[in-house]
């Protein structure tokens, strides 16, 4: 398999009452910081807050390859905004999952 481009698929679980705050954090702090580090935000999807479950917020990021991810990783880690939004996101999350995916042929 060619490990490129790299898709980082982050799925966070947040309580229904917190989901709007979490989505605002994604829009206003997480996406701008990661974009500045060279990571493209492909999509932000969320499950319904009206079905009696925690809301799943799935953000998909893309970088060209693992070399580019390594450089972006350094750049966002050195950005104070990264540490601020990470702390807020952690306080709102009830669980989650990160997976790294790649396009498949055919």
């Amino acid at each position: 398999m060619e490990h490129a481009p790299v898709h980082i698929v982050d799925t966070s679980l947040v309580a229904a009452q917190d989901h709007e705050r979490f989505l605002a954090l994604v829009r206003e702090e997480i996406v701008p910081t990661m974009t500045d580090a060279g990571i493209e935000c492909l999509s932000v999807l969320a499950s319904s807050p009206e079905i009696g479950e925690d809301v799943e917020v799935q953000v998909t990021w893309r970088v060209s390859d693992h070399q580019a991810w390594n450089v972006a990783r350094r750049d966002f880690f050195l950005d104070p905004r990264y540490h601020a939004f990470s702390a807020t996101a952690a306080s709102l999350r009830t669980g989650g999952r990160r997976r790294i995916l790649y396009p498949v042929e055919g």
Partner: protein
Amino acid sequence: MLRRYEIYPVDPAASAEAREAMNVGIRDCANFIPELLHSAIGHAESETNLNFVWEHAYQSPEHYQRYMRHPYHAAILDRFLMNDSPERIIVDNPHGLGLVGYDIDEPDYLLPAGAARRLVALQLAEGSQERFAGIAKEEAERCGMINSIFEYNSFAAKWFDGETDTGLPTNWTHLWEQGFADLDAARAYQPQWREKAGDMVEDSIELLYELEAGVGYPEVK
């Protein structure tokens, strides 16, 4: 060679399954990244909340760079460790003691199976390295350490590629790896170096753990 440590506080609320997944994923990652050498983890006793230690090495900065760019690093290691990962199971480290290490010619740090390590991170006063090295040598002989390596922490700011200074400051100027035959011996050790060093030591943290050797860790020194 680059000798390297990663040190973390594991979230006390993390599930046993998640902890085990991280333990195995880190300890045995040489199964997937052959550039990674001499990997062992330890569940540390400490006066701080730092309770997870991963010790390992690389033959050269080029080997370290391949490790950093490997898909396993992004997919498995970062999953448990990166601040932004929804699966992170460590918490913020208030001590500034996370990634540290030093350069060494040979893997003198290896310990036999069943051995224990006391890792001492030191903030030494400027100009005291040579005098402290003498104290460390004396102390190792006095109490029968099976291994003692005292080195300048040259790795802390070079975590990106093993060569370039990222500018991220660290207070921890030196590392002292102390080897003991087993955990009981490491616990029984009564340090005298603090009294001898006096004002040379501006700060220190000690972590004590039994080595849980991973894939590729030689069983004898």
